[in-house]
């Protein structure tokens, strides 16, 4: 696959767990769309299994999890489920309210990056694009070693 200027990242923007505050996920999804990405957006309250299934079916490069009210605490479970489904090449980012010590826990579980309040849309979309390239390369390597 060529990684030239026509490269279009495929990103899933979603919320897992119990909270429904979706201002953040909507704004980020709109910003990604406006930045030329292929955006798959869902309403809040997805189960981990549903996110894994959607990520697989839509063959996304980046999974963006928005969390306002502590739903980030189950992201490590999502990371394990993605790996179990053979989707370890996908990059996962979390955006929202994440305390410092819990950010460390998320990064340790394999989350690529945590975006805190105050991140600009430009910063988020630029980074997501870069991670999408990483994910494509990782997928290609996975393919060639198979």
């Amino acid at each position, binding site marked *: 696959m060529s990684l030239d200027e026509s490269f279009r990242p495929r990103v899933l923007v979603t919320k897992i*767990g*119990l*909270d*429904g*505050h*979706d*201002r953040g996920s*909507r*704004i980020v*999804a*709109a*910003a990604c*769309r406006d930045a030329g990405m292929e*955006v798959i*957006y*869902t*309403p*809040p*309250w997805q189960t981990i299994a549903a996110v894994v299934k959607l990520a697989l079916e839509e063959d996304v490069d980046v999974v963006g999890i928005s969390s306002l*009210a*502590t*739903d980030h*605490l*189950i992201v490590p*479970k999502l990371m394990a489920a993605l790996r179990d489904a053979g989707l370890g090449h996908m990059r996962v980012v979390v955006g929202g*309210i*994440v*305390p*410092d*010590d*819990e950010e460390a826990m998320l990064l340790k579980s394999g989350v690529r990056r945590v975006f*805190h*309040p*105050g991140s*600009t*849309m*430009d910063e988020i979309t630029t980074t997501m694009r870069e991670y999408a390239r990483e994910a494509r390369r990782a997928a290609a390597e996975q393919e060639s070693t198979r």
Partner: protein
Amino acid sequence: MNKPFDAPLAAAAAADARSRWERDYAESIGTERKTENVSGIPIRPLYGADDWAGYGQPDPLGYPGQPDYTRGIYATMHRGRTWTQRQLVGLGTPADYNERLLGIMARGATAVSLIPCNSVYRGYDMDSVEPELLGTCGVVLDNTDHMDRCLEGVDLNRISCALNDPSPFTLLAFMLAVAERRGVDWRHVTGTSNQSDYLSHHVANHMFYRLSLPGARRVLLDHIAFCNEKVPRWNPMSVVGQHMQQAGATPAEAMAFTLSTAVQNAEDCIGRGMEPDQFLPRFTFFFDISLSFFEEVAKFRAGRRIWARLARERLGAKKPASWRFKFHAQTSGVDLTRQQPLNNIARVAVQAMAGIFGGLQSLHTDAYDEAFQVPGEAGARIAVATQNILREEAHLTDVIDPLGGSFYVESLTDAMEEKILAIMKTVDDAGGMYAAVEAGLVQRMIGASALRFQQRVDSGEQTVVGVNAYRAAAEDDAATRPAVERPDPAEMRAHCEAFAAWKASRSPAAVGAALDALSRAADDPKANVFSAVVDGARAGLSNEEICARLRRDLGFGQPLAFV
């Protein structure tokens, strides 16, 4: 001795002074910055008598306690009774909650508020959700016994309780069952079904979303009818602008959508044969207070007088108690920053002042740590102290409507009123708030405003100290962030085990019979579903059992998914 007054000469001198100022201003200002408030009203550098339509008229604003209540809904306003200091509290197990609650009351809080865990909001019991999430955002409260434990030591005859309790209002049902247990007459029970407004949940806060739009509409009306009759001091209707503003609505949009929602609910009640003067005195409102200080003051003053007219002219209410715009307000969490978090204390103080000058009846001040966690003990203490300082040290309550008569504030109040009425007309043209929400119109407008606000911040047009200006090193930021407090996992496990044992101890036949009674009420359009929910709480049904059954019978809908 003064010379005899010469009006034409004085007018000429004034005009001369004005043009001199205009010239001086134009010469000194350099590049004029275009200033607009969040609601889109252009803001001029100076306001004078010409900018206020009412200036020079006898009593242009009327008096506090008199329609149209621009200056406040009571004759004494904050000089008499100030406001209810109502801090949101909710965490951990019922025992944790009770301990925090009694502590806050000992430090001056005068009313109870109860925030349940997100699992409760969503209508699930603790055994149906990921254990990591339990009690992290509110108290895990799934039955009448848990409510009893939460409110241990709280006199339900005396203390007003605000329950964050979406349709079908299981928390109030649990509380009424507790009152009965304790021998407290329901006629003495006072408080509010906070955020009972299902429309705002569908628009902007899906956390509460439990029933379909038509199902929620019916249960709300049943709830209002039940409370009016059996719990007459309870406020069953809390119309919410806060969710919508937090989701991105401008202050004018939030006020307009809230008033349109109130009209929708009132007209629904009238359609059911209820008398406006019976239910309207128990309508309350709940708003967000952003950092746009003057805009917020004007928003509240304008909303108050629009409501007085609507209640009288459109809804036909005859009693002043029906015209009064009683509102609780919460300082906006959206304005708080994770960076340099102690700055949030200053932000909250300014927001709270806007609400106080706007004439609120009840106030929650956010803790400074809300931008990165559910408030810790220290943050909650400062939030309460902020209110005490504003009320008792700063003399903000000595004078009623102290900003009234300011050229700027009056001009802005008029402009906000005009803007709010225009947005309400858009909603009316779409068939009213219910139809506008069903069609997604309101959600789209709010989404567009949220995006616009984000662009203002990203472009630097709106300064946010510590975020897009005056930034500090990352490590300095981190040093001022307190460690996060999470519920004790062992205690939560014990709470879950006790709940499982309680569930198993019940007679399956009795549980089945109670659920069937709920279904019968849901199936019979003449029955009162909320009355059946109260019976369910008495009979020992859990939150999830009640919600799941009504979801099945009355429908569960998904929020509209679009960007």
